[in-house]
């Protein structure tokens, strides 16, 4: 049995490189009937904002070729509810419980991160900078390196534990974004968030989603995600967490080869609620079959 342990730095050590992606795994408890969720390297819980959000109107989902669009719109009950009602129930889960933090202004991000900094059993946050910056015309934080740097630096000032920053692929230069957040103090970056897309019902001549556009995920985004992970891992010194369309252990291995130190699994959980555990086993088998002693040997081992 190979060593699956991964150290992402700044106090975030994973028993194996497989985490579950925010928004696709609830708070973990939803999946407890299907697998031993404590076997995961980490669980990144639902996007949490400063205030309660009802999210977007229904319909919020459309299946597309080899993927799906979602427009959930960060429905959540706000960080105070999380701290008081949800945290007590999940804090003893024997894996890294990581909170995905979202916001619509720098102040929101900072206030939310500061509250989560107080929670002993949350070793890290994943800062979701794919959100629209309401104060500055709705452009997403994650599409302008200057704005991204500003929000990450501000959060860095109040957040003392592991700060993972999640990048959106809807940019011209993913490496510029990655370098900007690294310089602002990110301890790791995760990518990719969903790709902006849309679906149309020709019969009714209407968009399928209430919001017209939505976020694309699933196997169809994997080639884009792999390319971005590969480009980013070449220029960063902090670890990269790869995700986007991972459906099985082979997909996960590909992300590690491209340069990721760990991976997140999202949409695949909907199709196979036990997929996380299967991917962990599959990575282990791959390492054994290839005579590797540690999963860290795979990171960036792409032969070009």
């Amino acid at each position, binding site marked *: 049995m190979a060593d699956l342990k991964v150290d992402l730095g700044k106090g975030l050590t994973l028993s194996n490189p497989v985490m579950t992606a925010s*928004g*696709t*795994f*609830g708070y973990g408890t*939803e*999946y407890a009937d*299907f697998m031993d969720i404590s076997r995961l390297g980490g669980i990144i819980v*639902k996007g949490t904002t400063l205030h309660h959000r*009802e*999210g977007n*109107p*229904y*319909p*919020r*989902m*459309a*299946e597309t*070729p*080899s*993927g*799906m669009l*979602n427009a*959930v719109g960060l*429905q959540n009950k706000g960080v105070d509810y999380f701290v008081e009602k949800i945290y007590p129930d999940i804090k003893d889960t024997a894996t890294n419980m990581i909170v995905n933090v979202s916001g619509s202004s720098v102040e929101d991000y900072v206030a939310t991160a500061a509250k989560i900094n107080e929670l002993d059993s949350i070793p890290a946050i994943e800062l979701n900078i794919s959100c629209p910056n309401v104060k500055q015309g709705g452009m997403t934080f994650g599409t302008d390196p200057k704005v991204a740097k500003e929000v990450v630096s501000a959060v860095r000032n109040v957040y003392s534990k592991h700060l993972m920053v999640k990048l959106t692929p809807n940019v011209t230069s993913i490496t510029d974004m990655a370098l900007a957040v690294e310089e602002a103090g990110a301890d790791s970056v995760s990518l990719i968030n969903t790709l902006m897309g849309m679906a149309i019902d020709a019969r009714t001549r209407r968009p399928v989603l209430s919001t017209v556009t939505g976020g694309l995920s*699933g*196997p169809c985004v994997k080639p884009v995600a792999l390319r971005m992970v590969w480009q980013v891992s070449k220029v960063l010194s902090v670890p990269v967490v790869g995700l986007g369309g991972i459906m099985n252990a082979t997909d996960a291995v590909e992300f590690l080869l491209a340069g990721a130190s760990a991976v997140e699994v999202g*949409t695949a*959980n*909907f*199709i*196979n*609620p*036990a997929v996380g555990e299967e991917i962990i086993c599959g990575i282990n088998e791959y390492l054994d079959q290839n005579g590797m002693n540690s999963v860290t040997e795979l990171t960036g081992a792409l032969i070009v």
Partner: protein
Amino acid sequence: MADLVVESLTTMPNGQYYRLILRGESPLLDCRPGQFAEVRIDQTDVLLRRPISIHFVDKERNEMWLLIQKAGKGTTALSSIQRGNRLNLVYPLGNGFNATDNDYRHPLLVGGGVGVAPLLMLGAAFRNLGVEPTFLLGARKALDLNELDEYEKFGRVFLTTEDGSLGEKGFVTQHSVLSSEKFDGVFACGPTPMMKAIAQYAASHDIPCEVSLENRMACGIGACLCCVEDTRNGHQRVCADGPVFNINDLKWQI
């Protein structure tokens, strides 16, 4: 999550509906009427599971029935599954109908189109409680109304068709039994306009009414928040907080 074995597939006379009988290799999990299964369809162009109501459970034979309409690529692909094949199901999901909370004596079970599916099991449950349910089933034409002998095992059956080819002509909400008898509970599943009309009937007669919604789902287990319905308690997950809702909790204009 379990693999069930296809025991039989029966195509209904309209060519659009089919009934799958699945057999468990180990004892089936307990299911309540109104709960559903997320069915994995092994086709490269079908990614997500498809939610399908549990039509009936035959405990003695350890069999589960599904009644499915060919609505698109997934349900059409599934219609060519063979006897002996395995089908992967996540079940039972959702809350199900509340048949036992109230002491119903005269429940009305209203179904339209393939929405009749969960009512067979609900009817059986009432029968087990010693209550004779009344089924009111509607469809476009006679060929869309199937398995009537199955419903008759558990209760009385009234029918409507839009073209008048079977039962009374018109919609379920126009059936004479609604005015000739007094019901003390209404349980409905089918197209939204039908359920809204039935909800209106129930509300105006002060009868408790539960409806089963069919919002589009991704995870089916309450994790993704894709399937929400706007209710009086905010956006609620149809897969986990429903699919059955009391009409008083919905924001329907009735």
